[in-house]
């Protein structure tokens, strides 16, 4: 059924799409990949997670209250902060704090800018229709940059510990000794975003734009929205990556210009 320019999906239509998973199941069986269980679990999880967030969003959209929107935004931010660390291979005391602060400051700052300055909706910033999807998209990408940057920093410092310490022994400050790893980490966090801007619209149509096209928005409007979002995401990723790298640097080096390599442990070890 068409409603305001888009086709409203019924449960049976979703079920038709779900039947496609049988194709994957057939491949798994045919080639004895042993993926059957994972496939079922992954499909079920995806359905349950999306339905849950659908109901949560419906409730948030209907409530139209500042507190509800803020609460959801805080939960999303904390989950992103924790998930960013979970994807890395090493831990240090305070890493979850560093990641969460970086996610929070970068994504909230950029989302606020997007809503207030770009969309010009400063007085109704809490409207969930804009705040939640924009924050969500920025969080998803910032989280990626943060985890890549954090992982690279820890990796560089561990692998090149001898170079860092050599610089310190020759009179380098901790910043001078760590600037190579810091630079590499920030680059690593930002490169996927730059690559994605390079190919967007050529290799793939971005998800948000596709969604808008499906819901009947004119292509040029959808493109404008996408451009705005890409810029917001790029700056959120940059801010978040720089934030987590600097906070980690401050934690891993003390004021006496000593590299506290003992603080870094492999994930899963105490």
């Amino acid at each position: 059924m068409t409603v305001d320019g888009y086709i409203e999906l019924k449960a049976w239509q979703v079920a038709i799409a779900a039947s496609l998973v049988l194709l994957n199941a057939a491949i798994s069986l045919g080639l004895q990949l042993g993926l059957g269980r994972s496939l079922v679990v992954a499909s079920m999880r995806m359905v349950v997670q999306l339905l849950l967030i659908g109901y949560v969003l419906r409730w948030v959209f209907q409530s139209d209250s500042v507190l509800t929107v803020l609460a959801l935004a805080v939960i999303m931010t904390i989950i992103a902060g924790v998930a960013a660390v979970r994807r890395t291979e090493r831990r240090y005391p305070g890493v979850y704090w560093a990641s969460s602060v970086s996610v929070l400051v970068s994504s909230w700052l950029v989302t606020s800018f997007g809503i207030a300055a770009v969309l010009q909706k400063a007085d109704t910033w809490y409207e969930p229709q804009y705040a939640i999807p924009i924050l969500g998209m920025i969080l998803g990408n910032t989280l990626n940059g943060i985890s890549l940057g954090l992982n690279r920093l820890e990796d560089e410092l561990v692998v090149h510990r001898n170079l860092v310490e050599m610089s310190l022994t020759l009179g380098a400050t901790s910043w001078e000794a760590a600037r190579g790893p810091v630079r590499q980490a920030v680059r690593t966090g930002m490169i996927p975003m730059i690559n994605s801007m390079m190919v967007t619209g050529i290799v793939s149509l971005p998800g948000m734009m596709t969604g808008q096209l499906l819901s009947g928005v004119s292509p040029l409007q959808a493109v404008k929205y996408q451009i705005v979002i890409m810029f917001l995401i790029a700056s959120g990723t940059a801010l978040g990556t720089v934030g987590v790298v600097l906070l980690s640097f401050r934690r891993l080096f003390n004021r006496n210009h000593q590299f506290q390599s003992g603080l870094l442990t492999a994930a899963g070890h105490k």
Partner: protein
Amino acid sequence: MDSAGVLLDAQGLGRFVPGTQQWLLRDVSLAVRGGDRLAIVGPTGSGKTLLLRSLALLDPIDEGRVLWLSQTISARLVPAFRSQATYLHQRPALIEGTVEDNLRLPFTFRIHAHQDFDRRRVASMLEMVGRGADFLARSWHDLSGGEAQIVALVRALQLNPTVLLLDEPTASLDASTTQTIERLISHWHERTNGKRALIWVTHDRQQSTRVAQRVVQMNAGKLLEGT
């Protein structure tokens, strides 16, 4: 103790295994004066490297303190201190690039920014160890272990440190390279008529008597006066 002429003074240094009360280094006191050549010997795991790293303030100290020219070293002055009391690793760490790139590296640090890389001086040091001017253009990954250690040593010596903290710099080198390195260090030490000092950690008793005028023994994190 008379503190006149003391360059580096460690007082009651202690370090323990993080999070425990198990001592790795306990109540170590050591004073180094201009002209001193001190060797520290002892079995593997006795705390020699740990002591040297503590003297260079590379690790946090749990007990005691390190004084430089009878003064405590504030956090701000740690880089300046390390440029005067320089620690040399057992395994040389080189950056990617040529020998010259490695020798120029310290001048990118603020503490050495007022100095310039002195090619002539470096060339004369390299000549002393039988390496010509073309050695400067050699790539870091074409160097043998001994050559890499020579580069690391020249990189430190060109900055005119007052005290060298040498952590078994010749442990994995052949006799001839060991001799070369000893010669280079001895030349650096003798140049200023008793103003410079060195602490040389080694497990080689013969080397300790060759390079030092005083040998102390370490055992289980404690310093025992030796031969």
